[in-house]
């Protein structure tokens, strides 16, 4: 539950961002993040909210880690990351 999940911000409208998670676009709420977020940023998300903007130098390492986690089928960490994804409603590709 504490793992969160990283994604790339595609667009921002008010307090909701459209975030790309490995090709799937989902809506993420921005009330909790403590820095301005804009298209192109990567954010760490937990239960539907962005909680932190990921610094540029950490993006690749963070993505590598989660990609290795998601490869584990039937794995507890993979399941937790997938549950984090489900917290964000899916949006149409042109959103």
């Amino acid at each position, binding site marked *: 539950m504490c793992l969160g999940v990283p994604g790339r911000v595609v667009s921002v409208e008010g307090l909701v961002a459209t975030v790309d998670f490995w090709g799937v676009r989902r809506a993420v709420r921005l009330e909790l993040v403590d820095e301005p977020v804009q298209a192109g940023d990567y954010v*760490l998300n937990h239960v539907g909210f962005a*909680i932190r903007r990921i610094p540029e130098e950490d993006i690749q390492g963070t993505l590598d880690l989660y990609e290795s986690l998601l490869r584990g089928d039937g794995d507890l960490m993979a399941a937790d990351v997938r549950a984090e994804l489900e917290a964000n409603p899916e949006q149409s590709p042109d959103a």
Partner: protein
Amino acid sequence: MPEGADSRQLKFRDPARARDLGRALTAAADAMGRTVSLMHVCGSHEQAIARYGLRAAFPRSLDVIMGPGCPVCITDTPEVDEGVALARQGVTIATYGDMVKVPGTVLSLGDAQAEGAKVEVVYSVTQAVELARATREPVVFFATGFETTAVATAAALLGGVPDNFSVLSAHKYIPPVMEIVAEMPGSKVEGFLAAGHAATITGWGVFEAFVERHKLPVVVAGFEPLDILAALVKLVELVRDRKPEVVNMFPRCVTREGNRNAQEQLFKVFRPAGGRWRGIAHVPNGNLRLRDEWAHVDARRRFDIDLRPLWKYAPPALVQDCICGDIMAGIANPKQCKLFGKECVPDTPVGACMVSSEGTCKIWHLYGGVPDLSSPDAPQAEVRP
């Protein structure tokens, strides 16, 4: 362990660094000349330790224990009972998935659902609010989780919710329970590993008062295996050098102040209150309850929650043998429980620790806990120095 088997194929991203850290850990622990017990308080840490077989790399004199780091597991039985009673009174309960199987005194929410009560699984508080918007019936969000998750509940309430939506808060606050565990009679814990993502919200400064009071070091760690190994090396060194201080080993995510914006929202909506953590103790300030200003969305004040109808059921006999509380307090491990892997398995859990993906028992059941190093396929043996 069919499900855990795949994970053993996973390699460290940097095996050479893992080896170096393994050596450093052994050197630091050997220099102590005695057993050192350290505690972490995060289900994701235990998942990573078990999944990557890190205990195979730990020196024998190092004992790394999981404490009360599973939010589902420490949700107290009477709190589950409140949810069950409300569901049986005809209120729709929306809650995170793991909560459905967690046993109350006599029934789980899943049991209530099987009897016809409306229990909906959600992945976020926003989805629970959506459920309320789609109906005129009362919807109660049974809100569990530590401060990392409570901030989301707070933000959702501050963002506005429909009149038929309320919250049954079982949110918990981690820093106070560390005090309780440190003060437990017979506790051998000499240092704590704090969860990186929770500290993203609270900041590492929240541990300074704890360190000052208890003279025990705290190291904030990420949950990547290398992060955990590096943090453990640091923690053993701090114990060895008798340096009780907070060290942040997850600087890319955690600052001293944390996420001020999120903290403000958290404490605008919730206040810390004393309460029981399942199986552990009464924890002063360990519960997050809704402030008086939020009475209009507080399920405990809006509804007359009647627990009496539950008393006609007899508690399951096996529960008496469950040692979940001792496991979460770090004074026992799953292999010391006579139900573990026999009567108590993930499909038919007796205790909460076997329910949640962050529960020690479920993690050990899937991955094994302390690896058998004599086995030819002992995980990650290459980390050993």
